[in-house]
């Protein structure tokens, strides 16, 4: 075994060690390695593209409209936010089954806060109400996550059990808190967190965001290249880097443009015009919604989580614990503390997702968040996170969430009945993970 390993590794080592292109045939896998890209993520993007095109065909051209894709991005947000945290939990070889119930509990808490507990003290519609409510929700999430995390890390009860208990406890408490009532409506400013008629940033701001993001991509690629050159490391061929510097911004700006094609329906456009003192011409005004707030929140969350995972020691420790808990401990890492913190981070993200969900629904019901844990875990796993630990990316989980939601929303769009939808989702989940397992086995064989 030692001999075969040596042979293949030294081949790839030679291929990777030089700055010049190796002569000879270039395989697809080799191409990806040369460009330092992740084949898995590209596979995911391809899969999403396939179902988008497929549904578009099936729905007679409705799927690939700005409106539907805009809706899709909003519908994905809640699960995407939570999936970014679930990655870290699963990477450390744990699981969190309680996120759906926790979302319901925190959501109900925030709803009661703004609809019943705060108004007697400060009245309705204050400018700061949403801030207090959001912070309270995040804090509650942190506390609940910390409790679960401490029991997992220090008392060493398996996370499956602790969070299974949480699933029951938070759901029960949610009911007790409100006696099963539906709480509605939410504070007007708070509602903006969920998108809806007024919860988007508008066309112009979307462009600004797009441009800033594009510049950031270019700068990031440049600075990476520069720092690696400074140390004399291998870099991507210049052509490849330039291609990425063009492709990245192109995708971002193209996406912004496409989303901006989704204009407000007349009723809302009129209201907007009135509110902003615009004249209403005979043929009407085309006012784009722009990127929805929940989508910005989800993207922002993904960026922050990716940063933590790859650029902070905490992230490095999370991955090393997943890869080899013994090694991590022997390296002096405080493994228990790190594990506990992953649950706390998960709790905070659940609080954020709960805010978005309650704002979007404009109410909190007793059943809010039911079954969400399954979709969150599925998103992470489809996105490449392995349940055996040590492997998983934030970006992959977000793509996983988008993939799942595309599937579900698409099926509703074409009118597939609910029971059949469940079957499809289940089958796809197993297939996606099977594909991942086989792919990994091939790579390491």
């Amino acid at each position, binding site marked *: 075994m*030692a*001999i075969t*390993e*040596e042979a293949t*590794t030294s081949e*790839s*080592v*030679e291929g*990777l*060690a030089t700055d010049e292109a190796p002569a000879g045939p270039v395989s697809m896998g080799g191409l990806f390695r040369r460009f330092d890209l992740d084949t898995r993520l590209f596979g995911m993007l391809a899969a999403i593209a396939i179902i988008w095109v497929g549904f578009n065909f099936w729905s007679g051209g409705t799927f690939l409209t700005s409106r539907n894709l805009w809706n899709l991005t909003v519908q994905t947000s809640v699960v995407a936010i939570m999936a970014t945290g679930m990655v870290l939990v699963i990477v450390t070889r744990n699981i969190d089954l309680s996120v759906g119930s926790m979302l319901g509990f925190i959501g109900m808490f925030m709803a009661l806060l703004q609809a019943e507990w705060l108004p007697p003290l400060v009245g309705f519609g204050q400018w700061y109400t949403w801030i207090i409510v959001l912070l309270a929700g995040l804090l509650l999430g942190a506390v609940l996550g910390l409790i679960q995390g401490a029991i997992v890390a220090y008392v060493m009860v398996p996370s499956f059990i602790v969070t299974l208990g949480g699933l029951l406890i938070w759901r029960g408490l949610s009911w007790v808190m409100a006696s099963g009532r539906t709480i509605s409506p939410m504070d007007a400013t708070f509602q903006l967190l969920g998108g809806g008629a007024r919860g988007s940033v508008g066309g112009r701001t979307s462009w600004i965001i797009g441009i800033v993001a594009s510049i950031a991509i270019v700068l990031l690629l440049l600075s990476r290249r520069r*720092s*690696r050159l*400074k*140390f004399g*490391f291998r870099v991507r061929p210049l052509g490849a880097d330039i291609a990425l510097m063009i492709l990245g911004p192109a995708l971002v700006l193209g996406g912004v443009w496409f989303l901006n094609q989704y204009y407000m329906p007349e009723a809302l456009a009129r209201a907007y015009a009135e509110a902003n003192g615009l004249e209403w011409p005979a043929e009407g005004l085309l006012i784009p919604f722009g990127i929805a707030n929940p989508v910005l929140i989800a993207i922002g969350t993904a960026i922050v989580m990716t940063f933590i995972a*790859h*650029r*902070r*020691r905490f992230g*490095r*420790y999370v*991955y*090393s614990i*997943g*890869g*080899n808990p*013994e*090694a*991590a*401990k*022997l*390296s*002096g*890492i405080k493994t228990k503390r790190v594990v506990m913190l992953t649950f706390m981070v998960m709790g905070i993200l659940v609080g954020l997702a709960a805010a978005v969900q309650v704002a979007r629904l404009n109410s909190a019901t007793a059943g809010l968040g039911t079954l969400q844990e399954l979709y969150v875990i599925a998103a992470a796993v489809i996105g490449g996170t392995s349940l055996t630990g*040590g*492997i998983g990316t934030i970006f992959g989980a977000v793509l996983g969430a988008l993939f799942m939601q595309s599937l579900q929303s698409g099926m509703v769009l074409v009118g597939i009945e609910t029971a059949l939808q469940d079957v499809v989702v289940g089958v796809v989940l197993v297939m996606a993970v099977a594909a991942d397992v086989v792919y990994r086995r091939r790579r*390491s064989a």
Partner: protein
Amino acid sequence: MTGNGDTSAPLVEMRDIRVSFGGVHAVDGVTIDLQPGEILGLVGGNGAGKSTLIKTLSGAQHADSGEILINGEPVAIDEPRAAKALGIETIYQTLALAENIDATGNMFLGRELTTKLGNLDDASMEAAARKVMGRLNPKFANFKSPVERLSGGQRQSVAIARAVHFNARILIMDEPTAALGPAETDQVRQLIRQLKQEGLGIILISHDIHDVFDLADRISVMLQGKLVGTVDKDEVTTDEVLAMIIIGKMPDEVTKSELADLHG
């Protein structure tokens, strides 16, 4: 690392170390020492207590009683970090590498370099890694793949590079060539000799008697938790050491017929 102690004192002294696990005396009053620039072979059969003894030095195990002195100064080694701070680096039998992380990441695991803002300074770490590897294993070039994709010898290099980079003065190696093929075993042996030349003290645990004879200056033998004795390599034969390992008798006690019996 260079303490204020007596410069003629041994690099490491472990006096009368005892470790028990619920009534079983894993280490039963063992005393060994290590000089700078010396390789001490620590040998014994399964369950002799070698790994446990060495864990008390590397901080992975608490000794129930006994003393450890570094450069003549008594020290308390409560956890791995404390051992590393004293210049003690350990290369475990399983290498203690995180499979999903690359060579650079593993080298700096727990001791990452950070930028002013507290972010991981990957570039600097990789540069340092390349520098160390350049000395130890110039052919090694795969710094970016997860270590699970590297060969046994390459993984060994990473583990050794980790130890060397952090200015180990005392290196503990537990079965370093057990999982390696002949070419790589040679490579590692070269490396160990090179490190000895640089003045490190090395405790080498091995069940391969030829490895031990090839590399070690002195050999300490343990049997069932107790130290049988410590001998100079030049003054004994492999058979006599085998006798120490299996029968527990020192060379001056063992009989010719017992030595013959060893080979069945």
